[in-house]
């Protein structure tokens, strides 16, 4: 499987995601944002970080870059796209995913390990997880407060497009386990064709027991399947 990681000025989880992909035997290429062609890939990852300093709106400026036109083309032809953290924000800015990510409800940057529940394991991104499995994953963001309109929310629920929800250690989805104010505790969503996943938590940070745990590994092994 071939993967491409798009690197914007200010991306800073690009190396981390590359390490994770290579660990799972992806043939990975880093793509600088000024490039105008994408190598043929099975998976395109938009990594976390602060593209363009998060200035204006997080993800907004990266969303206007040339390479994004190529990403949109690839997405439309069915290529798998994964946006993590700032990558998720970029995907919403480009319109590949609907909804938006507002400031965290406490207006502070939040970095900690949270629990998320796998809501749908019948996708290319999550088939190695069990449904309702609880993962402990690190979040690190200023703007992770997912918001969307009623209609879209209904659609997300009806079509099982919610990938992960924030929960507590026992899997309960409630206000206390919602770190940033996201509507319905949503931590990650799919597009309607389920070839695009945007998520705020960082699975690439959870692939090594010495550093954290291995709860993120199955996302990548689902993809290589």
């Amino acid at each position, binding site marked *: 499987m071939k993967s491409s990681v798009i690197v914007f000025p200010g991306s800073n989880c690009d190396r981390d995601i590359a390490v994770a992909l290579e660990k799972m035997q992806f043939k990975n290429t880093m793509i600088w944002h000024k490039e105008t062609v994408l190598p043929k890939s099975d998976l395109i990852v938009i990594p976390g970080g602060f593209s363009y300093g998060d200035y*204006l*709106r997080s993800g*907004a*400026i990266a969303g*206007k870059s040339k390479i994004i036109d190529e990403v949109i083309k690839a997405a439309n032809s069915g290529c798998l796209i994964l946006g993590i953290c700032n990558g998720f924000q970029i995907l919403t*800015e480009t319109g590949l995913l609907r909804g*938006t990510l*507002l*400031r*965290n*409800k*406490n*207006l502070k940057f939040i970095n900690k390990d949270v629990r998320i529940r796998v809501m749908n394991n019948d996708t290319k991104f999550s088939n190695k997880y069990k449904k309702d499995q609880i993962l402990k994953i690190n979040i690190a963001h200023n703007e992770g*407060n997912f*918001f969307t*309109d009623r209609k879209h929310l209904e659609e997300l629920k009806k079509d099982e497009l919610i990938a992960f929800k924030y929960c507590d250690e026992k899997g309960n989805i409630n206000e206390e386990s919602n770190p940033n*104010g996201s509507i319905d505790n949503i931590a990650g969503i799919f597009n309607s064709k389920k070839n695009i996943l945007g998520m705020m938590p960082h699975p690439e940070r959870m692939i090594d027991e010495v550093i954290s745990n291995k709860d993120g590994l199955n996302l990548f092994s689902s993809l290589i399947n």
Partner: protein
Amino acid sequence: MKFSVTVTLKKDVLDPQGKVVQNTLINMGMKNLKGIRQGKHFEIDVDEIDQVSAEKKVDEICKKLLVNLIIEDYKINKI
């Protein structure tokens, strides 16, 4: 020619910043505060002589980059 642009969140979009600012002010003892919402403000200087075409340019800038039309409204004023 200089313009100001204010960008505000649409009415039905949650405004976490405004909310926190409002709570803080109330905690600080500010009474009679009914509401506060936060937005962005830009000052744009374009090199044009014709106001109409200048304003068109600013509008384009807003649509193309400054504003996320899904969640935000904007207003342009000449200054």
